[in-house]
């Protein structure tokens, strides 16, 4: 367990030395800031004309997860592949660290970085809460942020798994992005076309577990299991990739 923490901590610190992490953080926070500003503007306009609903965080979190689809590949691409390129993989693979601990540590480091970013975005609901009387719906706030955290975990799981499989960063980036695009937009598409069994595709669709449920304040066990399973699958793929590399 301590090994996981040691690796995660180095990875977390490393993000604050890397320009990519700052670019990602800046882009996410900028876009969210603009969306938040526009939202507040329209909500207040609507409120003056006595229609529209009370604002909640779903507009922010909804945009946030979309940004994650585009930016997580940049955060995970170098996690394992960089070690291979720099030769430090030899160091980690000959240190008394299990392959799974290495992969989980890498994932945890990235996850903690995203959690820090998520924590920063909490400033929007706090502002919103002060603008709205009697305050925003806390149930939606909790459930939507839980959704963002679970999605981050799943995205990073996939990203780490792919980074461990490919020794080239650029390859890892594009394959992660393509996987996300597939799981986010494409996999759910056949559900509306096929006569039977469309539920399977809907279940695989990553966004269907977020926008319709968690982001509107509905917490279902199935959604939690889905995201945790995806995370576990990604980490398993990553660990296996390392093991295969040893035996090759």
């Amino acid at each position, binding site marked *: 367990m*301590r*090994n996981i923490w*040691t*690796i995660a901590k*180095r990875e977390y610190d*490393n993000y604050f*030395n*890397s320009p990519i992490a700052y670019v990602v953080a800046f882009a996410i926070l900028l876009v969210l800031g603009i969306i938040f500003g526009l939202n507040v503007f329209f909500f207040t306009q609507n409120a003056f004309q006595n229609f529209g609903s009370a604002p909640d965080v779903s507009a922010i979190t909804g945009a946030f997860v979309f940004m994650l689809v585009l930016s997580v590949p940049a955060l995970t691409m170098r996690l394992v592949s960089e070690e291979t390129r*720099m*030769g*430090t*993989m*030899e*160091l*980690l*693979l*000959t*240190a*008394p*660290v*299990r392959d799974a601990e290495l992969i989980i540590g890498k994932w945890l480091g990235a996850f903690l970085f995203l959690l820090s970013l998520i924590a920063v975005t909490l400033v929007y609901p706090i502002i919103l809460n002060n603008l709205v009387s009697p305050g925003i719906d806390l149930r939606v706030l909790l459930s939507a942020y839980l959704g963002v955290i679970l999605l981050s975990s799943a995205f990073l799981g996939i990203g780490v798994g792919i980074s461990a499989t490919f020794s080239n960063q650029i390859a890892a980036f594009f394959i992660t992005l393509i996987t996300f695009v597939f799981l986010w937009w494409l996999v759910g598409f056949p559900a509306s076309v096929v006569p039977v069994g469309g539920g399977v595709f809907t279940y695989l669709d990553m966004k269907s577990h977020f926008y319709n449920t968690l982001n509107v304040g509905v917490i279902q066990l199935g959604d939690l299991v889905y995201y945790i399973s995806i995370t576990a699958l990604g980490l398993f793929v990553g660990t296996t990739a390392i093991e295969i590399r*040893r*035996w*090759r």
Partner: protein
Amino acid sequence: MIKVSGLTKDYGARRAIHNLNFDAQQGEIVGFLGPNGAGKTTTLRILTGYMPPTDGEAIVAGYDVVEESLEVRKRVGYLPETVPLYTDMVVFDYLKFMGDLRKIPNVGARVDEVLDMVGLTDRANGYIGNLSKGMRQRVGLAQALMHRPEVLILDEPTIGLDPSQVVEVRALIREIGKDRTVLLSTHLLNEAQNICDRVLIINKGKIVAEDTTENLQARLIGAERVILRVRGESDDLAATIKKVKGVQGVETKSDGTVEFEFASGKDVRPEVAKQVINAGYDLLELRPLGMSLEEIFLELTGSDSKKK
């Protein structure tokens, strides 16, 4: 401490090492000597648990490298050929990270200790990316020493160092080798001659010779050859030496020196010296022409390729 039997590794269809057998005791520095591509790095990687062998068995510090890989890795310090460093880290943090991975208590103090051993105390807060190649090599060595390993495995430890650093690092390795097992690979013959108690010569994945450096020389030569130099004319010198019992193969060189041989173990040099002086010559030099490890090496690896 290290026991290897029947070790074999295939990379696809290519056989990198073939049926290696050797061992190394505690307090022994064993050199692994061979040309590029001989299988040195492959063997070291198997011993450190980086990858499993195709066949055969290796026991390091009492544990099997495949079955009990984690136990082996806890007890082995390893400096790979390409020094594995995070260039965007500070030297101190890097060593602390490695110490944490090995769960060293009071890791900060140990980092200071190790930095002192490799002479990098003044660069502790510098970025690894800004260090010279020699310094990086020493950081790599420091990393391998962090956890006071029972077995130290070094892949080309002095490569890229300047001459005075080479001397320092070799002294450090000798110091460590006093109570621990050191296995190092090198393609520098004088390095093997210099620091190693025993040398394994490997070529094309097979061990072609294994002995102490002195024995290797003696074994290959059989007889010892000596060069003799006197001041001034040396016309009748050869005749004088031939009178001594046990002297063979006397040869006068064009520069006036005389070379001769005697059978190993029957040192005739004192007798020769007396005869030369009694004959009225001023003796300047009487020196054994030991076959260098270089020559042994070429002989072993060269003759091997000729057979094929």
